[in-house]
């Protein structure tokens, strides 16, 4: 997929990878090139319609040229017997922007991914956000890595993980600062809705230059009983109060994207929250 030089394509391009056959491997290989000064929004829906084991193992290679902007949104709805292994690499040149949003809505046998972004041109920027719901016996290991290789580059990684039942979630993130004047921030929050689930957050900062600003914040816990009681005192049932708080927890900043895409992402997050 190529956005030609200078093309501002504000309406999203929709892509879909559907698995229909049991015992199948689906192994797509996607290359997206955003040429100089172009802007492109891609939304990818990945799902399965079978209830038997399958493997989705996709490779995505994204190239954002000078002054280009790519917004990539991925919404996953897999099955309890599907194994998922996306492999993503992104190269962003001078003044380019890469913004990704990832929403996983359903139980998945196992998910392991760690998209890697290289900011190689001055002033390039990356923003990675993920909202992951892990239920049932799901095992999810979701990362995000940004290498700040050029001066004045910046990155933000934001993740929200919610676990229930016996699910296990590992949230990894790494920002590596390798040039002067770079900035990076990691925000990593987890919410456990059952005592048998697990969340492990591993935010990491790697400073390889003295003139850098790096920070991270991570918090894991359960819903506040005070907040639930407060909402119940306002007339909401316990289930309604819990649902509202979970939905609020899953809120992430959706910047610089078209309204229609924002609506799709918010709908996916709401559906994921409703299933908890």
């Amino acid at each position, binding site marked *: *997929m*190529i956005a*030609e030089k200078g*093309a501002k*394509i504000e*309406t999203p*391009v*929709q*892509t*879909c*990878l*559907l*698995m*229909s*056959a049991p*015992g*199948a*491997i*689906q*192994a*797509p*290989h*996607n*290359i*997206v090139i955003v040429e100089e000064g*172009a802007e492109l929004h891609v*939304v990818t*829906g990945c*799902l399965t*319609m079978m209830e038997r*084991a*399958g*493997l989705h*193992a*996709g*490779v*995505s*290679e994204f*190239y954002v040229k000078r002054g280009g902007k790519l917004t990539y949104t991925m*919404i*996953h*709805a897999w099955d309890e017997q599907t*194994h998922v*292994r996306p*492999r993503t690499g*992104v*190269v962003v040149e001078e003044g380019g922007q890469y913004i990704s949003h990832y929403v996983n*809505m359903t139980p998945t046998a*196992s998910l*392991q991914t*760690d998209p*890697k972004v290289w900011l190689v041109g001055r002033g390039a920027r990356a923003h990675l956000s993920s909202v992951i719901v892990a239920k049932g016996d799901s*095992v999810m*290991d979701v*990362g995000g890595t940004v290498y700040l290789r050029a001066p004045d580059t910046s990155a933000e990684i934001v993740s929200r993980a919610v676990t229930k039942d016996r699910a296990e979630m*590992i949230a990894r993130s790494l920002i590596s600062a390798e040039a002067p004047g770079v900035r990076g921030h990691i925000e990593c929050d987890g919410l456990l809705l059952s005592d048998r689930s697990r969340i492990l957050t591993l935010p990491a900062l790697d400073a390889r230059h003295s003139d850098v600003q790096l920070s991270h914040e991570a918090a894991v816990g359960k819903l506040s009983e005070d907040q639930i009681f407060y909402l119940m005192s306002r007339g909401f049932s316990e289930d309604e109060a819990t649902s509202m708080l979970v939905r609020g927890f899953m809120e992430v900043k959706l910047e610089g994207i078209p309204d*229609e895409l924002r609506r799709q*992402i918010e709908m*996916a997050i709401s*559906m994921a929250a409703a299933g908890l």
Partner: protein
Amino acid sequence: MNEAELEELRRRAEGALSKPARYGPDVDVTQFSVPPSPASYEEILRASSHLLASVGVDLSGRGSAGTYLQVDEEAVEIEVRTSGLRVLNLQQALEEGIVDDYFWRAVPVTPTSTPRLRSSSVEGRATW
């Protein structure tokens, strides 16, 4: 990409296959295979239209600049509805030499990218 370069990718992929995954549960890729083409893609899409809607896919294409739709390993719809955008099958892009400088450049062939390498996509058969 010439045949020698493809052969080198295949060789590295085969070498990576025997190595365990570094993170996450290890998956035995030999348990999975590329499925045969279904009798009717239309029927599959019709049966899954509500699921597709849940992940933001509108089969009518309304409100989108283009569509790429893949079922299993087959591209079943590629449409472009705006200028300045090109969407093409990866195999075609490779044949035309458009992505030679990008194919397997941002994702290395390593143990973590092993599962897919067993399938057809080393050759870039499907996808955009």
